């Protein structure tokens, strides 16, 4: 993908509109929860904090994506342990997942060589993806409320992704979603009740780093993730 194409994805009006629409959800959650607290003299502000943090993460991820695409010279690549990235993603999503009643499981068994990547970008993309899936799982009737953060080897490299026991994440859901992004209110309607901006922000961040968001399988689970090439030279260090 050329630099211009990368920029056009993250800077596209569709993604910006998608982001704006998506931010309505956490802001409405905050507004209504605050109103409810006022009506009932309730003191629990934790749900408000969770929503606010979720909104901030999404905006921050988007901004990082823009900077990655428009100022790539400012970002250094480094050896990154995928396991530790997934661990940090899990930490970031913990409070949100608890609020939504979704169990997060880390599955990084096996030794994987470090990859050369932009750690912050990778973490932001996977967190953005994870947040959308955490919010979407309870809305998908009859899905298990469990999200696995996992990594495994494939013939193309090391796959890092988020997986769930739902067929909704299988097949051409991503291809259809990208095609419908400009044309439908809910381009990922089989996965999410929202416009899925978190998935498209992750898509754009990964593109800016020369990576790709893909559908993937991990054991019997379906999910979304990215493929990273391990660096054998680093293994020798």
């Amino acid at each position, binding site marked *: 993908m050329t630099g211009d194409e990368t920029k056009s994805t993250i800077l596209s009006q569709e993604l910006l509109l998608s982001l704006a629409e998506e931010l309505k959800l956490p*802001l409405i959650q905050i507004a*209504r929860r605050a109103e*409810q607290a006022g009506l009932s003299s309730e003191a629990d502000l934790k*749900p408000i904090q969770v929503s606010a943090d979720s909104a901030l993460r999404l905006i921050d991820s988007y901004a990082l994506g823009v900077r990655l695409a428009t100022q790539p010279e400012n970002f250094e690549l480094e050896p990154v342990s995928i396991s530790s990235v997934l661990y940090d993603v899990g930490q970031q999503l913990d409070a949100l997942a608890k609020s*939504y009643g979704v169990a997060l499981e880390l599955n990084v068994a096996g030794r994987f060589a470090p990859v050369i990547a932009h750690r912050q970008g990778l973490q932001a993309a996977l967190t953005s993806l994870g947040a959308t899936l955490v919010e979407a799982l*309870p809305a*998908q009737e009859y899905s298990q409320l469990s999200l696995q953060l996992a990594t495994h080897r494939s013939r193309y490299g090391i796959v890092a992704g988020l997986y769930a026991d739902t067929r909704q994440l299988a097949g051409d859901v991503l291809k259809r979603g990208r095609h419908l992004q400009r044309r439908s209110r809910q381009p990922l*309607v089989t996965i*999410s009740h929202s416009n899925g901006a978190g998935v498209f922000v992750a898509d754009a961040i990964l593109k800016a780093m020369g990576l790709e968001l893909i559908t993937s399988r991990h054991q019997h689970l379906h999910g979304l993730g990215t493929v990273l090439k391990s660096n054998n030279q680093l293994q020798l260090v």
Partner: protein
Amino acid sequence: MADILLIEPDKLLAETYFLALDQAGHRVMACAGAQSAILVADRHQPELVILELQLVEHSGIEFLYEFRSYPEWQDIAVIVNSFVPPSEFSASQELLRDELGVVAYLYKPRASLQQLLGTVSKHSPVKA
């Protein structure tokens, strides 16, 4: 006070609406999607429905057409409380109102809890 079927896919919002309606004295059955809403309605016979149109897989519109195809549910008031701006249905407001029995359309970004509670009160069945 009414038996309300709340169809809201976002868990956090559903909890907030549930608390507000419960505190106002209503009995609330909450569902995340269209299919479970049909099953719950069949079991518990709601007196009023609050419906988000943007659901996963099956939309609120599909739910409404299925819901209204059952004679015993044709007179139950439905309040739409949705992310979809009402202006996007301007050509179909008549359809929503006359064919699907939508008594009120609330746009989530602008509708406060007080407004929702007021609308529910207005359209709740009067009990002896």
